[in-house]
């Protein structure tokens, strides 16, 4: 089999360039296999990030031929025909630390800004409630929360979103998908503040439903619909004086 032609971004925040590599082709080979081969055999100082190799941890996402993907779950055959060059770059919309490794801090800071952590409701006297909440599995709110709960924070949607590129303050699809699961969590007590946090230009009201997030999510989640849910809730709650 002919060798694969691979182009990889080498550089840090000060600059860099694309570098060409040739990698032995195999019958079954993922993009992550290719990057690992290069680091082990050809460029030991190549920086990239991975952990589980089986699509559970969400740490190996990169841009492959202009599209954010989990490299561990992307076969070379799926992105390039025989003889075609594969271009691998760091995730878009995030600062580059070096080579293919991006700094995920701004991404997770925005989860915190969108109040993405569970805030349990207090009992009427301010203490921890004595009773468990009962959440029927087929209730509407439980199903809305279920639809978005499997996110593992890989950043593919964030790197695919043009609004993030256009407005650095924009919270992005993953953070608001998380907020929408909590808005639908009947045990949570922080929704007035959370809905304020996801409102306005930095929040759900800047989404234009390009649905790049939904299109690219490796877990087939639908952050675009979650953001639409936030808009809908904010609109009717404001109009009917519920907030």
């Amino acid at each position, binding site marked *: 089999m002919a060798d694969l032609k691979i182009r990889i*971004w080498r*550089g840090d*925040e*000060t*600059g*860099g*360039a*694309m570098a060409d590599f040739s990698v032995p082709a195999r019958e079954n080979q993922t993009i992550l296999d290719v990057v690992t081969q290069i680091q082990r055999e050809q460029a030991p100082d190549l920086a990239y990030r991975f952990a589980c190799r089986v699509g559970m941890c969400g740490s190996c996402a990169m*841009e492959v*031929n*202009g*599209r954010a993907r989990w490299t561990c779950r992307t076969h070379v055959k799926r992105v390039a025909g025989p003889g075609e060059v594969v*271009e691998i*770059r*760091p995730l*878009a919309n995030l*600062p*580059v*630390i070096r080579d293919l490794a991006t*700094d995920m*801090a701004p991404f997770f800071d925005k989860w915190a800004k969108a109040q993405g952590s569970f805030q349990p409701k207090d009992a009427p006297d301010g203490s921890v409630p004595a009773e468990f909440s009962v959440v029927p599995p087929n209730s509407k709110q439980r199903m809305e929360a279920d639809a978005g709960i499997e996110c593992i924070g890989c950043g593919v949607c964030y790197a*695919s979103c*043009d609004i993030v590129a256009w407005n650095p303050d924009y919270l992005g699809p993953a953070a608001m998908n998380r907020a929408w699961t909590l808005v639908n969590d009947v045990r949570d007590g922080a929704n007035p503040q959370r809905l304020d946090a996801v409102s306005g230009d930095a929040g759900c009201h800047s989404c*234009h*439903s*390009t*649905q*790049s997030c*939904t*299109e690219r999510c490796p877990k087939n989640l*639908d952050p*675009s*619909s979650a953001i*639409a*849910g936030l*808009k*809908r809730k904010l*609109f009717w709650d404001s109009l009917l004086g519920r907030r």
Partner: protein
Amino acid sequence: MAEPLVFARKPPAARSPGDRRHPTYVAFVIHRISGLLLALFLPLHFWALGQALQGEAVLEGFLRWTDNPLFKFAEWGLVVLLALHLAGGLRVMALEFLGWRAGQKDMVAATAGIAVAAAILFLLNVG
């Protein structure tokens, strides 16, 4: 204590043009461009009509001036823009207010169909 990482502007070469060929992205671009053109045209439309409607003689002159083919073509383009923008708006409102999830690609196709149909209908009427 470690210094916090400070990043300069990203090196442009680390970025690829990006793949944005999915139908819903195309729908967004059409909606935005048609909206931009309509918003720029609107003041012109209002101002010209306001000028023309100063009296019967002025209006008659304006109407005869608009009889030329170039104006008819521009008028047709305007109706197409309106139809496209309206169809794209229905897509957005259905997603936002009705919470539609499934069949989104079908919805894009349907809105494009409505837009083209409206334009053809207008063309048949004017032509």
